[in-house]
């Protein structure tokens, strides 16, 4: 991000372009102009966004992923999940024992359901991966083998080489219609580029040498002009390659929290393994012989299969939810860290405020009326195509009912367009010369025309500056001479719903810090209006870095967005650094996530997705462990009521027979996995609230629910089984 000096209007405008929008301005429009901004920073109903929704789940995916699920039965793959590996070994054991007693329907039924348990677990993972695969296929299409036009080292001639032979530092030429052969930075020229292959957004974006919008991605297409690109990535390691690997889950590594959970699950599995393995001598003493099939069934029911089966699917789906929002997390670790974030650094422009300032009032100097100012402001802004200029015309129309006039309407008018040099726009018509623009420029113009600057103009502009606004002066030269008419108050407009959003974040225990190049006064005014907890004014990249380090020293995890090369160190230092896809390669390299939409507001959603991922894991673990209670009440009486009739009192579900009780528990255990696949892919419903309320809610649903649900489920399955004749 460039250092900002907000008082200079034109710079401000460029600034807003770098962070949030690529709307071309008159001064910068290359040909052909993109039809519209690739994305809009107009807020879209925050109320809906505040709940992290899930991806869609289509039951047909289950069927489609079945072959993959069977392929995953390979023990070398299964061993990665200790819980499910135990189930696999159990399935093999019961099957072997069933072959020894082929007449025993019970053994076969248990074996079949154990195999199903394993397959259901693999299915969950396969479905989660399958969703990424579709996306990877689309990306692969973009990665067609390109022929690069490499410049020879002297830069004078071109040679044709395959895209795969490019090396870092090579310079290639791309002209309209060419596919850019690899990741790199534009070192020469400006072009509009179609990045839809990666972002899915069809509107083209501008890429030009120098500045923060120089990065181009291999696989994207140049629509106009000619650029020279310096390759920055080796073939095979390009952005698109990494994206494919990520969405396919090939590069997936277990995250720290997932490893920790796996350790806990493994230790619980060992405890239950011990509980079951030591049971035969106890049972023999009691006078009841336990078959291997029954022991395996008991073991599988006790070990936390539900969470064991769904754990990796939850992780993959979490990444996938980000991908669906066009955010690429370079590691699962970053997604988890997002859930832990306690400080959010948010750029003011584009995140908290709309990209552009808007006119909010016309203030006349002594001796003129508001209507006069409005009229002059409108006329002088007709030739100003900047968003600020447009907002003046709109305000005049809305507030003062001044019909928008068009440049053609006024005969003989001479239009003075806004330029960065003059910092003024205006019109000469009917003997009147009207000007509007930055205070310094207009004052200079009035003096040039021999006019007098009224005294209260200075006071008015100061007042507006102090309130956090930007003053523009309106002046006229007519028969009465040159003079200032009034001041236009330009104001940063805080996006709708931001205050509520920040309140929610506060309830979640997250502190928001607004980062702005504005002076402290302006920053304070906007910070108060938006409701952020803190702000950093006149922020330089060094200030940002210092702020991050300070927060981290206090044990906090910090998330931020950035796009410029000078943001790179801060992005790397932050625990969650989201680079905008419009940004430089350095920024993208430094961050651990890339937002393809380049929408900084998304940081909030990323945090929510991170939390949702952890909550889903915790909820299903709790559910899984709570489930065991009911299974004991089904299986223990079934095993031992014959030798100790008193134990039948534990058969509180009144299951019809011992065999049916055990089978029902096993079937429930398998079916609950399939039943929870949609939840694990979608994630537990998440609404921002305090930790206490969230714990109460989830504990009730997944803890108490987990205790009760299997009692009902097992009873129902038992009822169905008891209907089967001959059992």
């Amino acid at each position, binding site marked *: 991000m460039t250092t900002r000096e907000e008082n200079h209007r034109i710079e401000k405008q460029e600034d807003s372009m770098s962070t949030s929008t690529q709307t071309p301005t008159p001064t910068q429009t290359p040909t052909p102009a993109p039809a519209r901004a690739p994305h809009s920073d107009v807020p879209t109903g925050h109320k809906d966004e505040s709940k992290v929704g899930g991806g869609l789940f289509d039951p047909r995916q289950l069927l489609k992923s079945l072959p993959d699920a069977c392929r995953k039965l390979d023990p070398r793959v299964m061993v990665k999940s200790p819980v499910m590996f135990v189930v696999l070994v159990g399935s093999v054991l019961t099957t072997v024992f069933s072959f020894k007693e082929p007449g025993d329907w019970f053994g076969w039924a248990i074996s079949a359901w154990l195999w199903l348990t394993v397959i259901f677990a693999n299915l969950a993972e396969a479905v989660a991966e399958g969703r990424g695969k579709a996306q990877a296929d689309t990306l692969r299409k973009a990665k067609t083998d390109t022929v690069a036009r490499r410049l020879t080292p002297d830069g004078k001639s071109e040679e044709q080489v395959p895209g795969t032979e490019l090396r870092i530092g090579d310079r290639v030429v791309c002209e309209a219609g060419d596919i850019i052969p690899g990741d790199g930075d534009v070192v020469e020229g400006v072009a509009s580029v179609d990045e839809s292959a990666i972002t899915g957004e069809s509107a083209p974006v501008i890429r030009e040498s120098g500045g923060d919008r120089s990065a181009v991605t291999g696989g994207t297409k140049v629509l106009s002009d000619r650029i020279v690109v310096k390759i920055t990535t080796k073939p095979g390691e390009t952005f698109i390659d990494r994206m494919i690997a990520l969405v396919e889950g090939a590069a997936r590594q277990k995250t*720290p*929290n997932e*490893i*920790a*959970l796996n*350790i*806990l699950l493994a*230790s*619980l599995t*060992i*405890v*239950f393994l*011990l*509980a*079951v393995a*030591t*049971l035969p*001598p*106890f*049972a*023999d*003493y*009691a006078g009841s012989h336990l078959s291997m099939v029954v022991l395996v069934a008991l073991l599988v029911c*006790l070990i936390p299969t539900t969470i064991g089966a769904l754990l990796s699917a939850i992780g993959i789906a979490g990444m996938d939810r980000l991908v669906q929002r066009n955010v690429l997390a370079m590691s699962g670790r970053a997604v988890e860290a997002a*859930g*832990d974030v*306690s400080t959010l650094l948010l750029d003011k422009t584009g995140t908290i405020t709309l990209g552009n300032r808007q006119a909010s009032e016309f203030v006349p100097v002594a001796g003129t009326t508001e209507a006069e100012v409005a009229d002059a402001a409108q006329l002088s802004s007709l030739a100003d195509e900047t968003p600020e200029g447009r907002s003046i015309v709109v305000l005049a129309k809305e507030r003062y009912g001044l019909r928008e006039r068009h440049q053609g309407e006024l005969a003989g008018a001479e239009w003075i367009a806004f330029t960065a040099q003059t910092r003024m726009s205006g019109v000469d018509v009917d003997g009147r010369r009207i000007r509007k623009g930055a205070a310094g420029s207009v004052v200079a113009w009035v003096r040039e025309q021999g006019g007098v600057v009224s005294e209260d103009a200075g006071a008015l502009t100061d007042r507006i500056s102090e309130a956090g606004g930007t003053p523009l002066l309106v002046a006229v030269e007519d028969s009465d001479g040159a003079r200032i008419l009034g001041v236009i108050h330009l104001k940063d407009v805080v996006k709708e719903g931001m205050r509520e959003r920040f309140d929610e974040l506060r309830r*979640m*225990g*997250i*502190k928001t810090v607004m980062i702005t190049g504005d002076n402290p006064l302006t920053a304070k005014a906007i910070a108060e209006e938006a409701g952020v907890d803190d702000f950093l004014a006149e922020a330089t990249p060094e200030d940002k870095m210092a702020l991050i380090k300070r927060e981290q020293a206090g*044990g*906090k995890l910090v998330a931020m967005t950035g796009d410029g090369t000078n943001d790179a160190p801060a992005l790397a230092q932050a625990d969650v650094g989201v680079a905008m896809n419009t940004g430089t390669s350095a920024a993208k390299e430094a961050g651990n996530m890339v937002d393809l939409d380049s929408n900084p507001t998304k940081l909030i959603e990323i945090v929510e997705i991170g939390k949702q991922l*952890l*909550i889903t*894991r*915790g*909820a299903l*673990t*709790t559910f899984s*462990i*709570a489930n*065991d*209670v009911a299974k*004991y009440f089904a299986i*223990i009486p079934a095993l031992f009521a014959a030798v*100790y*009739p*008193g*134990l039948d*009192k*534990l058969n509180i579900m009144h299951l019809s027979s011992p065999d049916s009780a055990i089978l029902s528990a096993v079937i429930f255990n398998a079916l609950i996995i399939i039943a929870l696949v949609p939840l694990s892919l979608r994630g537990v419903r998440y609404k921002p609230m*305090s*930790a*206490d309320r*969230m*714990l109460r809610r*989830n*504990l009730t649903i997944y*803890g108490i629910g987990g205790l009760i649900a299997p009692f009902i489920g097992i009873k129902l399955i038992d009822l169905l089984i008891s209907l089967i004749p001959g059992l």
Partner: protein
Amino acid sequence: MGPVLAGVLQLLALIVALGLAYVPLGDYMARVYSSDKHLRVEKWIYKAIGADPDTQMRWPAYLRGVLAFSFVGVLFLYLLQRLQGVLPGSLGFSSIDPDQAFNTAVSFVTNTNWQSYYGEQAMGHLVQTAGLAVQNFVSAAVGIAVAVALVRGLARSRTGELGNFWSDLVRGVVRILLPFCVVAAVVLVACGVIQNFSGIHEVGQFMGGSQQWNGGAVASQEAVKEFGTNGGGYFNANSAHPFENPTPFTNLFEIFLLLVIPFALTRTFGRMVGSLKQGYAILAAMAAIWVGFVALMMWTEFAHHGPAFDIAGGAMEGKEQRIGVGASSIFAVSTTLTSTGAVDSFHSSFTGLGGGITILGMQLGEIAPGGTGSGLYGMLIMAVIAVFIAGLMVGRTPEYLGKKIGTREIKFAACYILVTPALVLVFTAAAMALPTPGHSMANSGAHGFSEILYAYSSAANNNGSAFAGLNANTQWFNTTLGLAMALGRFLPMVFVLALAGSLAEQRPVPVTAGTLRTEKPLFTGLLVGAILIITGLTYFPALALGPLAEGLAS
């Protein structure tokens, strides 16, 4: 006054007494372990043992101290018993056999106090006072030291230092256990507990015949037996013996003694981590389980089954008339929920379900309130496990007292919770599967199984009480129970100290609205639920074949 009302009133009196002692004792212990000053007597001790009490130890050094000290303790106690026959003060008893000497040495060093011998028929004054009584003090102090090291791990940050083991050990003995035990012993003597070095008396019985009784320094040993949650009685009958526990008051006083340090340590914990509320939350979890178990026990023991129970006012078999059903129930629950293992009644004679409650009490891992020190660290480990599962449900990497529960931390906590179930289940299964151990059972059927399950639950959890009936003085039981006690004591300590070291290195995470509040009742409820479910699931099949089969039979 009916026996039920009497029991309830005694329980209330006990709770009031514990409540009164909680704050002063807890705060005092916090001061003891936070102070920089050494008493003169402590300086002499440091000089004598060649320890520098001011060096800070990282966890491996602290652990080395614990293990080395305990190993020397076992060796000394073993030799003392083996040489008893040739040493003075033996009361004429011969040396103890190797397997039993090993078992007893391990038993007292591990704060278990499992006794496979009859105190009055095997151990002379020298072994009782110079060997067993000394270990009663130091083994309790070692337990508190390890707990304090874990608390420091939670309280400190960005350092691996957990304090100094020698200083913690010596202070525990000199400033906490000794002075309070002197007072407690005086109270006990005043109430009729004996304290002498007299020899063996031949006493005539009124049914004819005669009996040999010996005296001893009983009151002093009784005080530390309870106060240090040791449980090893001077006499075989333990606190059911009138010389150890003569009146209903001494009975209640002994229950108070064995509960007071484990409960008060939660206050010490709260003080040392700078949040008394965190201590109250842990206290609430301990107290909820303890009160719940007492209520259940009273219910099963007072529940009348048939005319014999009706006449006696409850299940009186194996209980002392002077103590009654109510107080015996409170004692039985308190002694099994702490790692004490003293008994004033015979758990084997409790109703089937009542016996089950004592077994489950030990299987919870001696954490409600648990042994001196071991109760606190065991409960904190469970808190770490509960935080890990519940913390995920609030959408953050779980943290306890600002310390993140990551891969390393959960690894140590998971190993901790594996140890005792593995020991109990594997040894019990081996005893049931092998042909000879079963011969030790006094009963057949489910009750016989309960005897063996009880023995290993008691040993591995360092409780030390026995389900009377089992003849544990065999090579098999002396050896395997000895191993269970040693592994059940020291392996968990390894993981606790490793966890403490790992926590102490962390930088604390500040508390925000997104933090799981571990001082709230919701978390306490969750903790209790997690403990009951995890323990229940582990032992349910075994319990079903023992006490549940017996208790549900009628």
